[in-house]
């Protein structure tokens, strides 16, 4: 059977592919899981939070730093930080803005859950199509839209060289992949510490467990919710910057697939559970990569979602179980 030979043959290559892809899924999945933790809401506009960061990264690399060829040494570090911070901020702010405009008005009026869902889908479509229309040729309210992105995918310049840094079991690892793994691990550890070990983190956990009681105990619910959206947004922002850097592309609809996959990862790991999102992301990345090796790329989704169904059959609340943020 091709499957077994391919998997054996491509084991370390596909492990590498799966881990890098999974690290990105994990970072995006955090946003879904945290928002679900505090609001029991699937923030479908989260994929656009991610997309915004890939666009900011494009501008950072291409225009602010004028990158035309891969950088190295201290320049590289400065460029990476100089892109990462604005990308994370932009995504964080986008997430907070979505909360303000699409969810808070509904929350105030005690709207039914379905309204939130529709509002989320609406926000997602509105943002991505806004970027599609921002090609300098369209107007909204008779105000010309700036030329920011447009309908065609835009290339992001190569910042990190694609040359192999080292080989692990015969599989080359380039700087981009190493960077993704390193940044993802650092982010995830920091976030985990933050939620478990700080006052604000305790607030988030309290709101997730019981909003009313938390409010009675003096927790400012709105502030916690905004913080949650912001942190989830910055994680998607970091993921977006790494994504743009690794794949050298951004587009108005680039968030759609990673968004769906990350949502799946969050459910797989146990929605509302931060460590679950991390685990779910890595698992999904690996399952997809090995699924491709085993069959063919067009089966990747069938396998990934098949695994999801099987996992949910045996563990209906995901691998680590549904826990209120932590």
């Amino acid at each position, binding site marked *: 059977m091709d499957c077994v030979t391919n998997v054996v043959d491509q084991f370390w290559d596909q492990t590498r592919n799966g881990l890098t892809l999974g690290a990105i899924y994990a970072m995006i999945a955090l946003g879904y899981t945290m928002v679900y933790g505090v609001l029991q809401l699937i923030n479908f506009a989260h994929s656009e939070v991610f997309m915004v960061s890939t666009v900011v990264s494009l501008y950072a690399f291409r225009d602010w730093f004028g990158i035309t060829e891969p950088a190295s040494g201290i320049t590289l570090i400065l460029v990476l930080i100089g892109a990462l911070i604005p990308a994370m901020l932009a995504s964080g702010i986008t997430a907070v803005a979505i909360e303000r405009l699409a969810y808070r008005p509904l929350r105030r009026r005690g709207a039914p859950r379905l309204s939130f869902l529709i509002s989320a889908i609406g926000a997602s479509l509105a943002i991505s199509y806004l970027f599609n229309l921002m090609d300098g040729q369209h107007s909204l309210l008779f105000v010309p839209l700036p030329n920011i992105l447009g309908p065609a*995918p*835009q290339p992001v310049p190569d910042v990190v060289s694609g*040359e192999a840094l080292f080989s692990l079991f015969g599989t080359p690892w380039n700087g981009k992949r190493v960077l993704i793994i390193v940044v993802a691990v650092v982010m995830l550890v920091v976030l985990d510490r933050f939620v478990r070990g700080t006052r604000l983190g305790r607030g988030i956990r309290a709101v997730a467990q019981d909003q009313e009681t938390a409010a009675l105990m003096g927790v400012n619910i709105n502030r916690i919710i905004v913080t949650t959206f912001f942190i989830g947004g910055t994680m998607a922002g970091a993921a977006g910057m790494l994504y743009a850097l690794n794949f050298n592309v951004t587009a108005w609809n680039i968030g759609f697939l990673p968004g769906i996959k990350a949502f799946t990862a969050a459910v797989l790991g146990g929605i509302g559970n931060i460590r679950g999102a991390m685990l779910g992301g890595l698992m999904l990345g690996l399952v997809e990569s090995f699924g*491709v090796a085993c069959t063919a790329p067009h089966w990747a989704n069938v396998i990934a979602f098949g695994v999801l169904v099987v996992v949910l059959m045996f563990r209906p609340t995901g691998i680590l179980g549904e826990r209120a943020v932590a």
Partner: protein
Amino acid sequence: MRRGTFLRFLAALSVFAIVAAACREEEAPPTGDGAERIDVSVWFQGALTGDYNYLVIPAFQGAQLRATELNAETDFPATITVKQGDTQGDPANAPPVVEQVVSDPDTVAVVGPAFSGESEASGDTYNDAGIPFVTPSATNPALADKEWDYWYRGVANDAGQGALAGQYLDEIVGAQSVFVSHDKGTYGQGLAEVVQETLEGAGVEVAGFEGIETGATDFSAFITGVEKSGADTLFFGGYDADFGKIVKQIRDEGLDIELMSADGSTSITFLALAGEEAEGTHLVCPCNLAGDFADRYNAAYGGKIAAVPIYAAEGYDAMSMIGEGIRQAVDGGATTAEDIRLGIKEYLDTLTPDNPFDGEAKQVAFDPETHELAAEDPESLYYFYKVEGGSIVGLGSAPEVLGG
């Protein structure tokens, strides 16, 4: 509740603005000398917005350029208004557009539909309504089997394209083992299947035949498979957005194999996404990008969206033929849109291989039976290209490259 009211007002206002923007009327072209002219509409159906609009906009602009030129001719007997039938390339969006076209009393012809899928969804209605429709870019071979009497294909189809791509890989590239991939679409998979058959027929090993997930960004799992298959060449049937990313990532992985795709990837987007890594990529296309038309087109439109004016000349030629049909119909006494439609069809039917229309892209003639693009030497309708020095460089027509 001031705040809430304001938000609601804002929401209503934005909805209004979007609707207003969507309904914005196209400006009417300037009329010539003010003599008695008949107002006619020629619709362009295709993806004017959406994911693939940059593959279609050149053809639209080509058609519009020609309509503007015709309207400026003092002895042209009609005023053509080019109307936009935007489907975003999605067959599901086609029916309402078709409905608009058919119910427009001034409609005399359609340039389009641009893609094969939407052609399937639109053809029956146009044919029943007796509206001639000339596609500048829909290349799926099966469309000819529909036997639409009013349909004309102003471009060569994928059957020839795939066979020539296979022959080129075998004879010119010298491929020993080819990995054939596609995007699972009507166009991409159909093309890839023909390439596969051709290669197998020529005794070239096909190391794999796989579909990718279109719109995905990370192709590394797929690329690992290509690498391990030992193929020395990759063929991809599909669109530029996917192919650009695949090429870039293949080179990033340090994989040194020959790469080839077809008209769906012949674009500025492909060049931009693949960057320097596009160098040396082979392309086949039933489009002629050479000649001075490209300069004229770029002068008129700045070439911003499409520095590779794929199918711009085909769109221009479609409008030229429709314009000629209108001229002959009106000169022959037609006054109503119905009569002009018939006149256009009669004119298009006269364009046979021994009496072709001398277009910008090529000599245009139609097979009297199928209405496929026809020529004395059908292979001369295809062209090979290679990426050199960051741009798509013509190698010549198929007979020139493959040596007849």
